[in-house]
């Protein structure tokens, strides 16, 4: 499988290099759907210029990146394009290895379950074969690298690509079973933007499954493992934060980075839900709604973890999707990361109900974003309501996509336990309805 992967990498790098050289690069770098105030390259350059002048890059409201990023680019600013292409390649390769490993584990578990005769007789068509799972890792890498969202994000030099690389390395180290590396990468990802904190839950569940620790709040081993992971995670987070302090010599970056993410002072339009709401809000209620919106991102962790405690990798997918939809300043790069996982669940196709509607709406909204932006900002004939309507529709479609996959996953699990062709008590055929 190395040859197709290499070919894919070469094609992806060629496309990105061609776009870097064309005149579209500046156009793309200005689009608000692709860059946010947190991830824009323009702001990184501004911060570097301030740093060269000896002024703190966080003075003024322009720069919101973490000190590690600014020092990384201090050395790499001339090779910025190569850095971002490399980040994309790392993400793709990490996802490839992750999915290959995960497929092996899935197949092994399935084999044990078959031998133990745990599946009802009529759901044999739901069993997956190695043949159909053979090309999935390549498809995952392809979905990530050739996704127009990823290409746009890379050409715009949005630091979202670097965040995605760290997240994919975290997922890789989790799947490989390396607790320390997983904690370190997760703390790096949390350090960049706070929201990956919710990925602690699937990581913990995965390790516990792998180390045969029962997921039971009454057992001491459960709490002991959580303490160990928390120690490693918080320890590395502490180390990184102190390192940042020593790099720049002040705590300025804390309000600029984390204060910005949490309190959303900048209402630049983007594809998220925050900007319009907070533009319309009265000051009196701002703190309340801020808390509500931010809690919304973290809120789904506990219920999803309880429901999906046997399936931590699907939980990772759901959490990534929830972060990408509900975070304060999302961009298309965040969406590209969770969409890369969709081929892993391709066996759920037969249970998906709304995939046609969802893909039509996502396609139409992606096309309408630049049109309505043009009508609002340049032609002056529309206003922010038009753009927010498309944003709302886009996010509703994403939520529908994620919930559809969730339904399909749970339904397949249900069939694997109770059989595929369900019969009511009197023997006639029954249909499953989700109420």
């Amino acid at each position, binding site marked *: 499988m190395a040859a197709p992967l290499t070919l894919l990498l070469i094609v992806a790098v060629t496309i990105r290099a061609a776009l870097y050289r064309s005149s579209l690069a500046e156009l793309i770098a200005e689009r608000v759907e692709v860059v946010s105030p947190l991830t824009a390259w323009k702001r990184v350059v501004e911060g570097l210029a301030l740093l060269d002048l000896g002024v703190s890059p966080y003075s003024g409201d322009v720069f919101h990146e973490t000190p590690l990023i600014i020092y990384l680019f201090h050395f790499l600013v001339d090779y910025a394009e190569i850095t971002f292409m490399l980040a994309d390649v790392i993400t793709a390769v990490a996802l490839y290895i992750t999915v290959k490993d995960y497929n092996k584990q899935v197949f092994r578990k399935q084999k044990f379950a078959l031998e133990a005769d745990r599946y009802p007789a009529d759901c044999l068509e739901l069993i997956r074969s190695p043949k159909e799972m053979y090309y999935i890792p390549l498809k995952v890498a392809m979905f990530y690298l050739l996704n127009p969202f990823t290409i746009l994000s890379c050409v715009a030099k949005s630091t979202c690509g670097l965040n995605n690389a760290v997240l994919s390395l975290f997922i890789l180290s989790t799947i490989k079973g390396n607790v320390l590396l997983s904690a370190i990468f997760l703390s790096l990802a949390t350090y960049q933007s706070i929201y990956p904190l919710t990925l602690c839950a699937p990581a913990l569940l995965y390790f516990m499954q792998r180390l045969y620790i029962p997921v039971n709040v009454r057992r001491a081993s459960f709490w002991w493992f959580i303490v160990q992971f928390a120690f490693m995670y918080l320890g590395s987070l502490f180390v990184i934060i102190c390192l940042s302090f020593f790099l720049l010599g002040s705590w300025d970056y804390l309000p600029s980075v984390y204060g910005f993410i949490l309190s959303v002072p900048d209402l630049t339009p983007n594809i998220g839900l925050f900007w319009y709401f907070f533009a319309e809000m009265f000051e009196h209620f701002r703190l309340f709604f801020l808390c509500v919106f931010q809690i919304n991102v973290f809120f789904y962790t506990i219920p999803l973890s309880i429901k999906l405690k046997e399936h931590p990798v699907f939980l990772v997918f759901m959490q990534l999707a929830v972060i990408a939809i509900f975070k304060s300043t999302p961009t298309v790069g965040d969406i590209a990361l969770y969409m890369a996982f969709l081929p892993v669940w391709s066996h759920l196709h*037969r249970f*998906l*109900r709304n995939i046609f509607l969802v893909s039509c709406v996502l396609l*139409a909204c992606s096309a*309408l974003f630049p049109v309505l932006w043009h009508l609002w900002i340049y032609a002056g004939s*529309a206003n922010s309501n038009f753009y927010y309507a498309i944003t709302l529709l886009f996010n509703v479609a994403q939520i*529908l996509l994620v919930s559809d996959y969730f339904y399909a996953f749970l339904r397949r699990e249900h069939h694997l336990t109770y059989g595929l062709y369900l019969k009511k008590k009197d023997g006639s055929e029954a*249909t499953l*309805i*989700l109420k």
Partner: protein
Amino acid sequence: MGLLSDPNRRQALISLLTRLNAPICVVCYMAGVAWFMGLAFEPFTLRTYMSENAMGSTMVEERFPAGERALATGREFASQKNKVDGMPVDWLVKAMQARGLEVFTQRFTRTLPFPDENNERYMVKGTNVYGILRAPRAPRTEALVLSAPCSPGDNNNQAVGLLLGLAQYFRNQIFWAKDIIFLVNEHDLIGMQAWLEGYHHTNTTGMDWSPLQGRGGSIQAALSLELSSDVITSLDLVLEGLNGQLPNLDLANLFYAFCQKIGVLCTIQGKLPRNDWDSVSGYSHAVQTMMLMVMKQASGRPWGDHGLFLRYHIEAATLKGINSFRQHKTDTTTIGRLLEGMYRKLNNLLERLHQSYFFYLMPSLSHFVSIGYYMPAFGLLAVILLLRALDLWVQLVTPAAPTEDGVVDVEQQSGSGVLSVLTPLVISHLTGTALYMLPIRFQEMAVEHFPVSETEAVVLTAIAVYTAGLALPHNTHRFVSGEATEQGWRVLKLVAVLYLAVLLGCTALINFSLGFILALTLVPVAAFITPHVPKVLSAFVLVVLSPACTLLFSVFFFQELQEMPVSFQDGWLLYLSVISQGILDHFLYGSLVYPLIALMVYPCWLLFWNILFWK
């Protein structure tokens, strides 16, 4: 979420839609066309009204006295123009300075990508002259523009004369709160583009201009004047701008209100207003007026010098004086009073015009149709595409054997399906790119080898590439997947139908008329093309409804609407010049019609051609 999650109701709805798909499509199409035609029927329209409070009542006393002096100035301008054989820059500068304005000039040059045969120019060099009347007691933050083009020959002399007369009159008034810029631009739209780019410090079209030495504030509104006779019988209002953008309706309302007050006959699209809306001829008159507006908007050209202001969010319109055979003539003094009144009202504006509609159609100057009323016509046509897409999806997903909801893995076919769809897509888009790039690139080569001029070379190359697209191979998918499956063309048609729906939707949002006309011709094609319909007849229908032929018919239709019908020969020459003007508009002003048709609509049409001949 009942419909999305309850399988029984979903099944019922989906089976209803698939059984009745063709009848519903036909009904929707008829309904869409009927809705559109009904828009011109007067009881379905609204009377125009002034929305901006700052321009509320027209209680202004206009006192402009100097119409005769303006005509004399115009005659002097004409003689100077003949003497210099171009724009009399020095005379204009002296004349404006004598009237107390701050005068500046701007030089510009542009080499057109190929010679413009309509206006007989290729390497354009010119000068714009403009004078700024500073507001006596206000900070210089806002401005209004009055412009008159300097045209060759006997055109527009009176406009320049009136402009200078108004400048002198305005200079003596103390109530101006905004700077007024009096602009005389050379080479009409090219000069205007240079001036606007210089004023706003942008350079989107690659023109070479000298920077502006003097500037007013941000421009709130602009009027362009075209007056070629000493007396007129009516004033025509031209609203359509670049890419079909229209100014705020309040500007048209302002014009209409003042015409009523002063008693000048005002028209739109050159058609006189009528009262008999309930008669057939009255209704057809309104339909003709509306269709003229739709045609003009769909072409994406600026139909007056005002058309380029709209892109900078400046509301602008062109006033054309028409002298035809009627009893009642209006003299220059009255026109001057009208303009004085309009500028005094625009002077009162506190913020840019934004209260009234930006998207509208006008079946007459006193009635309009807003976007909320005309969009459903387009929506009905777009629904046809969505119904077809749903039908195809259901056919693709359900096999012959009945099972529960959502079935066999599309996985097996998806591999070959994706690739067999990708090849026609790539090929048709490459052809579209060729249609966009080849005519300009290869004009020198064409001129060497064939006895044609450059313009003809460009246009004929475009038509040649367009026709060559019809001969593309239709069975490339065979080499990829090895066999022509029934699934193959369905997947391609699904992709093509969705692509067309998104494309037409985006087009209709920016330029409704273009989107609607394309929808009228392309939606029936898209809905009913399959490889199984009779080939020769469908091929003929497909070619007749293709974008190029639509343009040909539109040219003849447009001439009919203007009551200047042309013979077939003249019509064909006009068609060729329309194509060359469209290409030139794209390169000179950034019009989007040519790239849209070449790069997106034509490849989409080619996909349907491919489906028709799918083996």
